[in-house]
Every structure is written in structure tokens, then in C-alpha cells.
């Protein structure tokens, strides 16, 4: 910018003006940088510092205990179980969410009349809040009065403890989570599909490829940027699942649905062990950073940009 303007000024004035002026990019960046610094960077540094201290229940630092908070965490079998639960939950929800969303998107992508109705239905879970969805599913899962157990018993089977059986609870929560997140992923993938030029499909017709040929040789490569985006957001979203857990199981039965974020919340805002909670925050940050980096590295080659 300065370069463009310089010739308009007199020769003597030019250097002075140039010195006074802030580089324009700083002004453009300032609002977002400020928000980032105040609401993200500062709390993060504070969290990092707090994690090395014993704290009062209001978060004041009382004594430096180096990595003791971390040692306590990683020697706590319950925390290790939470870690395991979180990874299991990731494996259960992320791939299935994306696969189901892709399937629905491919199926409802054609321009047949009435397809709009299906698209509305498939993306409708986006409009449901976690709280409302949880209440609704809680009714379905009810041990004695729930619809699901009515169906199961009608087929002569024993009622299932959807949320009360330690072997079953994480599966149930994962199912609800997939259902909840399907709408968003579906919508993004749908957008990707709509961007594919028909010419590609016409070429397939000429070659004589079938449905799977079209899917794997044309559709998936061409929407790979959308797929990558959906994968990443689903992964991070799954790491940070809170609402469903809080509303459906409160981490039970016997810790089997207790995920990292829920445990962090309980320690920070119910038990007020701020030091330990901060350490958990740092661990979670590192984990997400690591996993999303890993995922980027692994899938990078598979993503093609037009």
C-alpha cells in the first residue's frame, strides 16, 4: 500500500509519513488478535501455569508442586479409564458419522422430485440442541417405560439397560452422538457433492462404470476436501463431547462413559480441584493437537484440490 501511495507525496514528506504509519496488516489483524490473546492465549498460559500448582478451591495458587498434578493423573486408574473411554468413543463415533453422512448425501444427491424432503429430514438434526436431543433419547432409553425396551421385550428378549449397563452405555451414547452430528456432516458433504461438475459423471457413463466406480473413482476424490473437513471437526467435536454425557449418564455407570472433558468439568466446577483440572486441560490440548496433526499427515495425500 505504502509503495503505491509514496509517489503522490512530495519527496521530502514521504519518509516521515512512512515512519508514522502502522503497517496496514496490523490494523486488519488487531481485532482477531486481541480476541485471541485475551480469550484464548491468556487463559491458556494461565492454565499451563496453574497446572504446576496446588490451588485453593477458587483457583488461587498456593504452592508450587512441579509435575505432581500430572503424576497423580496418570497414576489414577480412573483417569486412565477416561482416556480409554475417550479413544473408544472417537473410534465409535467419528468414522460412522462420516460414513453415514456420505451415504445419505450420495443417496439424496440426485435431482429426482421430492428429494428436497429427504434432504431436509437428513439435515434436520442440526436444528436440535444437545439438551433437547438428550431429553428425547433419555425417554427412549428409559429402563422400564422406554420405547426401545418395549420393542426389545416384544421380540421376547430381556429388557436392556441401555444407559445403566456398563457394557452398553458407551455404545448407546455413541449412537446418539452419531445421530446428533449426522446433520452437520451431511450438509457439508452435500455441498461438496453439489460442486462436482456433471461432466465427470458423463465421462463415467461413457466408460460404462457402475455405482461403486462412480463413488470411489469420482465422487470421493472430488469431495475429499469436504471429507477432510468433516473428519477433522468430527474428531475434535468427539474429543470435547460434554452435553450428551452430562445429560444422559453423568459419566456412569461406574465411570464407563466418563470422557476427558466431562471429568475435567467435574473436577473444575463441582469438586473445585482447579490445579488438577488445569493439568487435565493441558493434557487434552496436547492430545487434540497430536491427533489432529497425525490425522492431517495421514490423510493429506488422499485429499485432492481442484
Amino acid at each position: 500500500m505504502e509503495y503505491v501511495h509514496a509517489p503522490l507525496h512530495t519527496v521530502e514528506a514521504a519518509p516521515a509519513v512512512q515512519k508514522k504509519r502502522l503497517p496496514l496488516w496490523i490494523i486488519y489483524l488487531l481485532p482477531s488478535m486481541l480476541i485471541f490473546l485475551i480469550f484464548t492465549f491468556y487463559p491458556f498460559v494461565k492454565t499451563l501455569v496453574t497446572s504446576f500448582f496446588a490451588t485453593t478451591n477458587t483457583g488461587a495458587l498456593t504452592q508450587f508442586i512441579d509435575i505432581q498434578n500430572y503424576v497423580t493423573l496418570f497414576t489414577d486408574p480412573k483417569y486412565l479409564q477416561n482416556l480409554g473411554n475417550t479413544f473408544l468413543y472417537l473410534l465409535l463415533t467419528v468414522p460412522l458419522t462420516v460414513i453415514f453422512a456420505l451415504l445419505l448425501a450420495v443417496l439424496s444427491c440426485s435431482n429426482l422430485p421430492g428429494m428436497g424432503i429427504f434432504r431436509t429430514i437428513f439435515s434436520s438434526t442440526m436444528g436440535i440442541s444437545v439438551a433437547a436431543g438428550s431429553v428425547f433419547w433419555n425417554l427412549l432409553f428409559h429402563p422400564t417405560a422406554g420405547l426401545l425396551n418395549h420393542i426389545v421385550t416384544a421380540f421376547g428378549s430381556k429388557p436392556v439397560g441401555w444407559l445403566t449397563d456398563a457394557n452398553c452405555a458407551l455404545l448407546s451414547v455413541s449412537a446418539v452422538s452419531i445421530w446428533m452430528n449426522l446433520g452437520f456432516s451431511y450438509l457439508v458433504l452435500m455441498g461438496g457433492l453439489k460442486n462436482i461438475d456433471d461432466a465427470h459423471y458423463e465421462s463415467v457413463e461413457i466408460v460404462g462404470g457402475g455405482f461403486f466406480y462412480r463413488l470411489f473413482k469420482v465422487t470421493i476424490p472430488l469431495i475429499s476436501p469436504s471429507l477432510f473437513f468433516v473428519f477433522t471437526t468430527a474428531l475434535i467435536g468427539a474429543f470435547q463431547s460434554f452435553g450428551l454425557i452430562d445429560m444422559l449418564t453423568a459419566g456412569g455407570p461406574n465411570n464407563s462413559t466418563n470422557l476427558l472433558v466431562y471429568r475435567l468439568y467435574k473436577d473444575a466446577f463441582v469438586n473445585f480441584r482447579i490445579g488438577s483440572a488445569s493439568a487435565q486441560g493441558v493434557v487434552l490440548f496436547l492430545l487434540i493437537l497430536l491427533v489432529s496433526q497425525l490425522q492431517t499427515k495421514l490423510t493429506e495425500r488422499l485429499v485432492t484440490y481442484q
Partner: protein
Amino acid sequence: MKNRVRKTALRVMACAAAAMLALTGCASSTDGSSAANTSGSSTQSNTAAENGSSADNTAGNKIQISFWHSMSGANQEVLDSIVADFNASQDQYEVVAENQGSYDESTGKFFSMANGDGSADIIQIGEQNLQSMVDSGMVQSVSALIEKYDFDDSDLLEQAVNFYTVDGTLYVMPFNCSSPVVYYNAQLFKDAGYEEFPTTFEGITEAAEKIAESGSSVMPVGMYAYGYALDQMVTNMGGYIINNENGRSDRATEVTYQEQITTIYNWIKDLQDKGLLLNYGSDGTNTLSGFTQQQIGMYIASSAGARNVIDTCDFEVGIAMLPVPEGTEAQGVYAGGGALCVAAGIDEATEAGVMEFFQYVTSPEVQATWAAGTGYYPICNGAYETESMLATYEEYPQLKVSADQLLNSKVNSITAGPLLSQLPQLRTDLVAALESVFNGGDVDAAVEEAVRSTNAAIESANQGVA
């Protein structure tokens, strides 16, 4: 070239998004209560709107007193009407009541506000938050105010005073007392030959067997893992929940409930093995709906919602005191429920208003109204003799049972109840242990794990006490 630029841009954006999302998770652990905010917000906006309009109407120079509470549903309606009556009764002060979510959520928000602008002058806490509040230094002891404003505290229930006394002084003002009780389907037990509900574990098992034998389709016992009920049952059986006399003689450092809780779990396991018990996980609402729809014959829950349960069920609901094992004398319960804290550092005028409000809500008439509408029991002796209370007990004799459970409780350091900042953690661990038993786990191993987890938490929390 263009490809590469877009590619890098996308990668940078993805990583930035990842980091941002991750960091917000950490951020809330130090400065926010974003998560805690969500659940109470709907009710909160309701009351805020109501209070806002009434404040406008009465405007003038009334001193506003902010009152955070955790009452919801039917109980909130009763509380709102009591506050409205107080506001109408005098022209100096106006109490603005706001629901701030559960006791734990409300306490968390109170800590985050650091007594700044917009924080509460009065905050209602649950018994599990007492030590945390004392530790925080953000509330003041009520006994100093009692002296300063010549508040008559002679009529307060001694059991309630016993619980809320810390280091020899009454720290917070008792307001809503409750304890866990047994709710049962009276007709079901009558049909099985029980006019009176059994008082022992063995008696309940026997009754459950009879109900099952009669071919009834109702599951005799329903249960959800409820930490408050579990530690009250330990108290009732005469056990200290934590060491140093329930944390009363010195700061507690470990749990001491092993013997009693093992007995309780073994009883539950026996019921379950015999096919007489259905568990609802840790979900009290689902248990209640199972009970009202006559799918279970009895369950244990707080007396706080008693009035609502009795009104909801279209069959006769009985309430009985917590059972004990045969041969054990019931000690009674500690006065759990809620109480009112006064924020530290409020100005003189607000302070006077707070005491005026306390005078009002602890008066016999108001306590009788409060108890009749909810299921809490009055915290002043006078309330039990008011005509309205007597009439209520005439109409709902069940409410009298839960009140008697407390009134007949012995007053000693066992029934003073636990004083522990990690009481919520202790209960979470007891719940997890019971859920493990529900799922067929070994009782001793479950208790051992709960003890380990709670003791570690207590140690870590004590380390931070200034």
C-alpha cells in the same frame, strides 16, 4: 502453484481450528463457567424477566438484594411466591431471586464472580458445598450478623444448627432441610400383608420376596445410585463418613465409611441377585417415573420433592424412614438440604436487608408454607405448631414421617454430618461403586476403589488449602 497455496492455507486453518477448539476447553477451567451456565439458563431467563418487570413497577429507592437459588419446578414456584410476599410486605428492600442451576453449578459461578458486580448477596448452597464455601473465604459467618442484628435464633432446629455449625459458630442460615426417605407403593405392600413398612434391610428383602411370590408384575425394589442417600444411610447406621469426627474436630483426611457401606452394598447385591431389584443407573428422574407408572414398588430419594410425588401418583404413596440392618439402632440423619450463605464484604444497608429477609423466611408461618408446598421440613420449632402445618400433616401424614426422621435424630458428632470440601467427589465415587455392584462387580473391590479415589482427591484438595 495455486494448488499449493490453497493446500497450505487449508492445513493452517484446520490446525488453527483444532488449537482454538482445544484451548477453549482449557480456558473454561480457569476463568469461565461456560459449561455450568447452560443448564440453568432457561429457568433463569424466566425469573429474570419476571423480576425485571416487578422491579420496574416498584422502582423507587428500594435496596436490591440479589438471591441466587437452586430451586426448580414446583419448588421454585413456592419459593418465588415467598419472595414476592416478602417484597410486598415492606418498602425498604427488594429481594431479586434467580435460579442459577444446581447447588454445585451455582457455587461454581459464585466462585468465578469473585464477589464482583452482579454477584449474589445471598446464595443458597447444598450441604455438600458448606466446607467449600468456608474455604473460599467469600462468605461471612452468619453468627456475627445474628449478634449484630439481634436476630432471634433460639427457635432454630438444633439438628440443623448442628450441621451448619463450623468451628463453634453457625456459619450459614438453615433454610430448606431434607433427608433421603423411602417412597413406597402403600397398596402393593398392603396386598403383601404389610400394614407397616419394614424398618430393616432384612425386613425389606422379605417383603420384596413376598411381593415377587404373589405374582405381581411390579418389580418390588427400584433403585438409583444416589450419593446423598448412601452417606446418610452410613450416618443412620452410626458410622462416621470421614475421619476426625466427620471433619468436625479437625480437617478430614480420609473416609471411614467402609464397614457400613459394605453392609449396604451387600444388601443391595443380595436383592439384585434374587431378582428383586431393578437399577435405574444414577438417574433419579427415571426412577420417579418408573415409580409413578407402578413399575417399581419402592425407591429411596430425597424428601424434598415429597409433595410433588404424592400429588403426581394416582395411588397411595407411603413414606418411610431409612432402613438399618437388623440389630442396629437407627441414629437418624444429618440435616442435609440447603441453607443460605451471606456474601462477604456487602455494605451495611444490604446486610440489614439480608437479615430482614432471613427473619422473614425462618419465621414459623413462612416455614410452614414452604414445608407444605415442597417436602422440606421446617427449620424452626415454632413452625411445627402452626395451624397450617398441623393441617398439612393431617392431609399429608407422609410429610410428617420425613420430618420425624430428622426430629427424632440424635444430636451428636455422627449426626452433625460430614464437613468436607470433597463431599461431591465422595458421593460420585460412592455412586460409581454402587453402579459397579449393579453391574455384578465385587462389593469389596468396589468399596476399595471408591475409598482410594476419594482419599486421593481429599489429599490433593487439602494440599491447596492456604
